[in-house]
C-alpha cells in the first residue's frame, strides 16, 4: 500500500482550513471504495499524494434536505442511505435505481454519491441519473467561497473534473422541476451483478401531456467520455405519442448520436446494438409499453 499520512477533523471549518494550507494535492477520502484500490495498486494517479483527508466524520456532509425548489444531498451519503431516503424516492426514482445497481450491498453501504461523482469514471452509475435530473454541484473552498457547476459540465473527461486542489464537493442539489409528475427509468446492463465491469446504462425521464411527450431527457452511461443528453432523440420524441415504433426509431438515434461522437472502434459492432436495444427497453419500460 502506498504510504500516506492520515488526517480527519471534527468540523468543516478545520477541514477546509487544512485543505487550504496544503502545497500538494491532498486526497480526500470518503467511502474509500474507489481510492483504496488505487492506493493498493500504487496507482500513478496518486504519485504526488502523501496525505489523506478523511471526511467521513463530518455529519454536515451526510444530510438530505429539501426546500421549494431543490433537494440537497450531502456528498457523504452512501448509496444505501440514498436508496432508503423518502425524499429521493419521491422525486428522483431513477437515482434510487442507479444507486441500487451499484456493486453489492457492502459496496453500497460504504461507497458514497460524492465519491462516485468526483472519481468521474465514465461508468459512474449515479452520474447519468444526476445529469438527467439536471443536478448541480456546490464546491466549497472557504466557508464562503463557493463555485457551482452542473454535473455534466463538472466532469470533463474520464477521471477528469473541475475540482481544484483546495476545494471539496460540499453539496449535490437537484431542481425539483415537477419531477414527481414525470415517468422515470434507469436501465443497466448486468444489473445486480456485484462484479460487472462494463456497465452500459440508460437513464431517462419524461413528462406527458394529453398522451404526448411534452419533455424528455435521455442520458446514457459508460459509452461516452463525458456525460450528455441525447439531444437528437429528445427533440425527435418531443411532441410525439410514445408508441413502440417511435421509441424504436428514437433508440436508433441514441445509438447513432453516441457512435457518431466516439467514432468506429473495435468494440462498436458489439456495443452499438447493445446500446440501441437498451435504450429501446428503457423507453418501453418508462412508458409502460410491452416489449414483445
Amino acid at each position, binding site marked *: *500500500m502506498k*504510504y*500516506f*499520512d*492520515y488526517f*480527519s477533523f471534527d468540523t468543516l471549518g478545520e477541514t477546509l482550513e487544512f485543505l487550504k494550507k496544503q502545497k500538494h494535492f491532498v486526497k480526500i*477520502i470518503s*467511502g*474509500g*471504495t474507489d481510492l*483504496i*484500490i488505487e492506493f*493498493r495498486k500504487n496507482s500513478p494517479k496518486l504519485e504526488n499524494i502523501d496525505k*489523506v483527508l*478523511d471526511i*467521513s*466524520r463530518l455529519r454536515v456532509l451526510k444530510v438530505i434536505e429539501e426546500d421549494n425548489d431543490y433537494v440537497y444531498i450531502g456528498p457523504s451519503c452512501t448509496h*444505501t442511505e440514498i436508496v432508503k431516503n423518502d425524499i429521493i424516492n419521491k422525486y428522483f426514482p431513477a437515482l434510487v435505481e442507479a444507486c441500487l445497481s451499484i*456493486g*453489492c*450491498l*457492502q*459496496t453500497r*453501504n*460504504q461507497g458514497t454519491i460524492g465519491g462516485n461523482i468526483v472519481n468521474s469514471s465514465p461508468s459512474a452509475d449515479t452520474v447519468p441519473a444526476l445529469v438527467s435530473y439536471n443536478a448541480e454541484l456546490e464546491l466549497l473552498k472557504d466557508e464562503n467561497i463557493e463555485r457551482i457547476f452542473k454535473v455534466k459540465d463538472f466532469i470533463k473527461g474520464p477521471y477528469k473534473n473541475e475540482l481544484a486542489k483546495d476545494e471539496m464537493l460540499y453539496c449535490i442539489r437537484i431542481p425539483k422541476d415537477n419531477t414527481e409528475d414525470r415517468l422515470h427509468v434507469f436501465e443497466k446492463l448486468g444489473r*445486480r451483478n*456485484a*462484479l460487472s465491469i462494463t456497465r452500459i446504462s440508460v437513464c431517462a425521464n419524461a413528462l406527458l401531456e394529453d398522451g404526448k411527450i411534452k419533455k424528455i431527457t435521455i442520458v446514457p452511461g459508460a459509452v461516452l467520455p463525458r456525460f450528455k443528453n441525447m439531444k437528437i432523440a429528445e427533440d425527435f420524441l418531443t411532441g410525439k405519442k410514445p408508441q413502440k415504433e417511435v421509441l424504436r426509431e428514437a433508440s436508433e438515434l441514441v445509438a447513432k448520436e453516441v457512435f457518431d461522437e466516439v467514432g468506429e472502434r473495435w468494440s462498436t459492432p458489439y456495443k452499438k446494438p447493445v446500446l440501441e436495444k437498451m435504450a429501446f427497453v428503457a423507453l418501453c419500460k418508462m412508458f409502460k409499453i410491452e416489449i414483445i
Partner: protein
Amino acid sequence: MIIHIKFKVNGVDYDIKTENNKRLLDVLRDDLRLTGTKEGCGIGECGACTIIMDGEAVNSCMVLAGRANNTEIMTVEGLEKDGELSTLQDNFVKMGAVQCGFCTPGMLMSAKALLMKNPDPTVEEIKEAIAGNLCRCTGYTQIVEAIKKTGEENR
C-alpha cells in the same frame, strides 16, 4: 505516522495506537489478533473480509484504520456466546453450508447484518444480502437454506 483509535469490537472497548496506513482488516487481524476475518481479493469483490460496522455489512479491506475510530464493530468472533455457537453458525454447520470455510466468516457477517434488520428474510432478500460474498465450494444453496432456517427459527 501513528494514529490512535478508540472503538468497540464484539462488545469490548479497545483503545489502540497503530500505523495510519493500515486497513481495518489489518488492524483486526494483526493488532487485535482476530483472525476470523479473512482476506480474499483485497479489492472489495469477494466479501471474505465482511464485518459489521455500526450495524451495516462492509468490506474491511476497503476501510482505512482511522475510519474505525468511534465505531462499533462486530466480527465473526462476536457471534458465539460463552463458547457456544450461535443459531446461525449452528445452522451453517448442520445444513452443510461450510465446505473449505474460507468464505464462511464473511458470509456469516452478511447474514447476521441482514437478520439484525430483518429477522425472518425471504430467499430473495437473503440472495441480495449475500450477493457480494463469493463461495467457490457450496453452490450457495446450503448457505441460503441455513440463513432461511435461522430466520424461521426467529419467528
